[in-house]
């Protein structure tokens, strides 16, 4: 994440502000250029799940947590799916595969684990939902 440097901006506006923007821009361009498409695809799924979880949490706080089991199921499904998708991302990331700790895990195996975990998760979620 980019550091927030608002306090410095007041003293050093001319030098600091472009550099923050530049840093962000650099971060974004390196992400778009260097990340494989499949990881980007997982990332977009993660963002989608996070938004879903945030919306449900806001609804719970601002409107109602009744019935509470439905909240737990709905929120838990997004969180669980997020965790599973994140671990899938870790396992199929080429950097981890060739140098990291997931050398022995093939992407197919990782996806199978992910799919199996997700199906079990959704089974519990829908049992708990109504």
């Amino acid at each position, binding site marked *: 994440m980019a550091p927030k440097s608002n306090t410095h901006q007041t003293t050093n506006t001319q030098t600091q502000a472009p550099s923050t923007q530049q840093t962000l821009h650099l971060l974004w361009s390196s992400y778009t250029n260097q990340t494989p*498409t499949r990881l980007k*695809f997982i990332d977009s799924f993660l963002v989608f799940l996070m938004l879903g*979880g945030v919306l*449900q949490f806001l*609804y719970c706080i601002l409107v*109602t947590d009744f019935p509470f089991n439905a909240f737990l199921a*709905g929120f838990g499904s997004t969180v669980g799916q997020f965790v599973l998708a994140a671990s899938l991302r870790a396992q199929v990331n080429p950097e981890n595969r060739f140098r990291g700790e997931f050398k022995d895990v093939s*992407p197919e195996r990782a*996806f199978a684990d992910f799919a199996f975990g997700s199906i079990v998760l959704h089974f519990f979620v*829908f049992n708990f939902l109504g």
Partner: protein
Amino acid sequence: MFYLLPTGKGYNLTYRSPKDSDGPPLIEHDLPKFSHVVVVGGDVKCRFNLVPIFQSIIQTHLLVVAFAKDINPQTLVGLLSGNTNLILALGSKQNILTSLAPEFGLILPPPNTNLVSHFPEREDPISTVPISPPREEQSKIPLTSTINAKSPISFSGMSFALSNNPRLFPILSAPEESFAGDIDLTSNALADAVEKGGEGLWAGSKMAVAAGFQAKGGARVVWLGGSSLLSNRSPNHHFANDVAAWAFQETNVLRIDSASHKLVKGVGASGNGRIGQPQEQYTVGDEIEFTVRISKYNPKFKVWEACHSLTDLQLEFTMLDPHIRIGLPPSPGRDGKREKGVYRTTFKAPDRHGVFKFIVDYRRSGWTELKFTETIPVVPKRHDGYERWLSSAWPYYAGAISTSVGFVVFAAVWLGSADERGKGKKKAE
């Protein structure tokens, strides 16, 4: 002069003389011998040395003028707990009744005082006070024939104040301008009272000359300020009849014939109760209908008639405290049929499980106390009795479904792209 009481109503009278201790005992083997007892604490001057005692085939009452050994406060209270009705007429002399009266919440003026009034101007002595009966709607007991007679009751005797005992109520109040005083020294008493700014003067319509008292068991007691109220001269005999009719449980007598409850809406006992049937237990949130039938005794025809006139009946649904207390109005009729004497209401069982009671507890001065209690358990919903798929939870359902759909789409796209890559790889090889 005296002792008319309900003649011709089938009462069998037994009289006992004042000092006759050989007469029939009031209580024998711990059971009251008479249904009704009239005790007249008359003056010794009284012309009667005979004492009339009333006895009837169905009901019995006893009239005593003075006091034999077995007539004492304990016996009289014992009679009350045995549901014997009493009419007690005070004399102006001290006797056992004057010492018993405070136990009933009567506050007697100093001894040897009579009710005195100088108004209206009349030929009678000032201690014979004309008292007009109360208006019908103000009277706690039916004084129909007294009111219809349209002439004032002539009273001589003592008046008394009433404490705030809820079981005690005035039947006949003293006139506003009357006061309690020694007949011979009236002017002095008045003058003294005036000097003290009215303190110590017993005066005004807060005092009563006749009062009713309802004992816990339902027995009725009438306290009279003097035996003149039982005189057989008109219009006092109308009053005597009205009061005796009330005291002897003829008028203002109610009873609950039946009470029932049934399920109107909901699941009832163990989740499968049939609508319209009484349940042995109800479930939280059930709609319950409660019906009670009330009758009133008609002394004229000696029958019980449906009573449709109570407007302030209430039903309580109680577990320690009333969780629900609602009016139980007379039924306006059902299916085009009139339902006389039926009181009905519908309510929703509270969201609280436990052992509840239906309670109808009707206590009004001058009326029989009505009491009905039935215990009924209210159980929580069964595990599958709760509503599912509530509208307030649709964001959660949407969240869960969107996650699942997202997973399916993700998996499909992932596998699709893997296929293409695989093909690409194979082609490259």
